[in-house]
């Protein structure tokens, strides 16, 4: 027999909706909701970020569809993709009398810098991490020394390497002279420019890759190293087959950070070359973007390049975030 009290209780609660978490919510109490009651805490930063980051991105996208150029105000009445067509194929856009070159050169430089910089950084970081992980003396000192460059700003790195690369007094040329290679102009040499930039950036960031890898190595139980040794693997084979495959997560997270850093290497180039003009052999999308916008006044075209750069960054970060999400780490 059914307990009449239970029946009564059920009737009373029938107008309540069952929430997904199993609780119930009654109509008409919007003000009591957790999301509303906590609003004073999350709403201000939410609005600020929404306006100044996502709002600015959205505005920039709209701007890239206009013909905004020179002084004056953008005209939002006629939106088209002309700037993107120009960016990819070049030509004379409607807002200019001059021919505008496409972005392929700087896009290519961007990709070369990104790939060479991140790959070498990771490889160097891995080697350093493995060496530092050998229970050596002064391990903390080495770790700090390798990590220190990362604490410098791009501006300091650029000025420092300008001096290092100097034809007459630079340490690099002194060293080259010592081994019999005559002084070489590096910073302004079109053949070496991009390599010089990449090298300086690698110097700055391989310590970061080392720290990420070191953390990864420390997370691998000692017994895995020992099991591989007892299984008969040589040191190289042990790292190659047992240890490095377990550093996948570390590699991916370091890679994402490094590539994104390389995309925004603008301030480094700006400081190294004292402006927006690193020359075609070291021109990356970021310098091109700023040059178009602030030197040439091609605001809309600069915005279009910014959007392309933004999409490139998204293309790198999204798969990472998605894979993290899939594995439930987000």
């Amino acid at each position, binding site marked *: 027999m059914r307990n009449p009290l239970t029946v009564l209780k059920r009737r009373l609660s029938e107008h309540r909706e069952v929430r997904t978490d199993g609780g119930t919510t009654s109509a008409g109490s919007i003000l009591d909701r957790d999301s509303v009651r906590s609003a004073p805490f999350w709403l201000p930063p939410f609005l600020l970020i929404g306006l100044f980051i996502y709002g600015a991105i959205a505005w920039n996208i709209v701007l890239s569809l206009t013909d905004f150029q020179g002084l004056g105000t953008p005209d939002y009445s006629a939106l088209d993709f002309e700037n993107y067509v120009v960016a990819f194929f070049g030509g004379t856009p409607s807002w200019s009398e001059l021919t505008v070159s496409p972005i392929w050169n700087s896009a290519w430089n961007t990709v070369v810098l990104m790939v060479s910089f991140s790959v070498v950084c990771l490889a160097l970081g891995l080697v350093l991490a493995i060496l530092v992980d050998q229970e050596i003396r002064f391990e903390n000192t080495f770790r700090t020394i390798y990590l220190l460059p990362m604490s410098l700003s791009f501006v300091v790195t650029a000025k420092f390497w300008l001096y290092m690369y100097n034809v007459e007094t630079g340490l690099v040329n002194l060293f080259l002279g010592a081994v019999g290679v005559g002084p070489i102009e590096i910073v302004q040499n079109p053949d070496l420019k991009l390599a010089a930039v990449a090298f300086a950036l690698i110097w700055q960031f391989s310590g970061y890759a080392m720290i990420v890898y070191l953390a990864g190595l420390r997370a691998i*139980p000692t017994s895995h190293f*020992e099991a591989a040794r007892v299984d008969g693997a040589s040191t190289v084979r042990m790292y190659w087959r047992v240890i490095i495959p*377990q550093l*996948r997560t570390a590699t991916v997270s370091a890679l994402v950070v490094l590539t994104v850093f390389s995309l925004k290497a603008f301030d480094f180039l700006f400081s190294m070359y004292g402006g927006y003009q690193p020359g075609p052999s070291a021109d990356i999308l970021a310098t091109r973007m700023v040059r178009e916008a602030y030197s040439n006044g091609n605001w809309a075209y600069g915005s279009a390049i910014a959007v392309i750069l933004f999409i490139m960054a998204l293309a790198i970060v999204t798969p990472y975030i998605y894979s993290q999400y899939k594995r439930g780490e987000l």
Partner: protein
Amino acid sequence: MAELTLDGVTKVFTEDDGNEIVAVDDVSVDIEDGEFLVLVGPSGCGKSTTLRMVAGLETVTDGEISLAGRRINESPPAERDIAMVFQSYALYPHMTVAQNMSFGLEESTELDDDEISELVDDTAAMMGIEELVDRKPADLSGGQQQRVALGRAIVRDPEAFLMDEPLSNLDAKLRATMRTELQRLQEDLGVTTIYVTHDQTEAMTMGDRIAILDDGVLQQVGTPLECYHTPNNRFVAGFIGDPSMNFFEMEVDGERLVSDRFTYPLTADQADAVGEARGVTLGIRPEDIGIDPDGNADSPHEFDMHVDVVEPRGDENTIHLTFEAGLDEPETFTATVSGLRQLQAGDSVVATFPPEAIHLFDADTEQALHNRSLDIPEATEQIV
């Protein structure tokens, strides 16, 4: 398969500040071909270090380790033809079970892929894990990981197995099952095995022989029953057996042992064994103590006791006894009686310490002066 010999093996660790720590001190054991030796001792006694020296994961400070008559002190692990099972299993998480099992063969033999996969399949079938070969370790239960870890060692068909507490991560029930299975497996394969554990039950039940280590020093090597019935010293007596042997510190007074609590007369043999020693530790195993709830303490080997706590275990009860009732934290010792006997805390009983069951240890050196006598001829034959 081969015999493994440890001769005066010593390991000294030097700390950063220059302090030297002797982890293993002059350990010598001969392990016969196909023998199952259990290395047992409390944590930090050096048993794992000894095993790791045999595996080649630690250098040997002094002494010699040889396998099949060949000195292996300086050989890297790869050249020793030894397989090891780790406490944490150490399965490679990014490889499937089959890849885990074939790794050692790929690295240490010249076999081609077909031969390796055949061996892996055979071993997987033998271990009952053929269904799991394509899974990753993270998708396996603890017991299954344990099997894979064993399979990985077995597939290599090594000269010797080294096992470092391989069952300690399993729950009690599974541990008991795996204990039997491991024993059967080792018997079938006939591979010389060193098995490290801190669990004296595993040592008693699994080993052909037990080697008991304490503080880096080998205390005794012998069959489980030898170690149980004729311990070399007080440490072995207390370590082997659960619940542990009871110890009473006594003074020698002629042919009697005297303490604040009781006096115990010795037989002539026992008195001879004690000889000149002044202080003696009297040891008696809980199951050798006779308990009579109704009797009177008539004989000099019988004592009036009070039951402090009763721990029922089903098959038997462990009872904690004390000489004086009513103390807050009384000194107790244990006796085991049949699980069917009804005893309550607070009961007064008479406990018998049968003279043939007592052990006597020198109070200073802790060496055994006299061990219990084993009257039953078969038992004596078996253990000697």
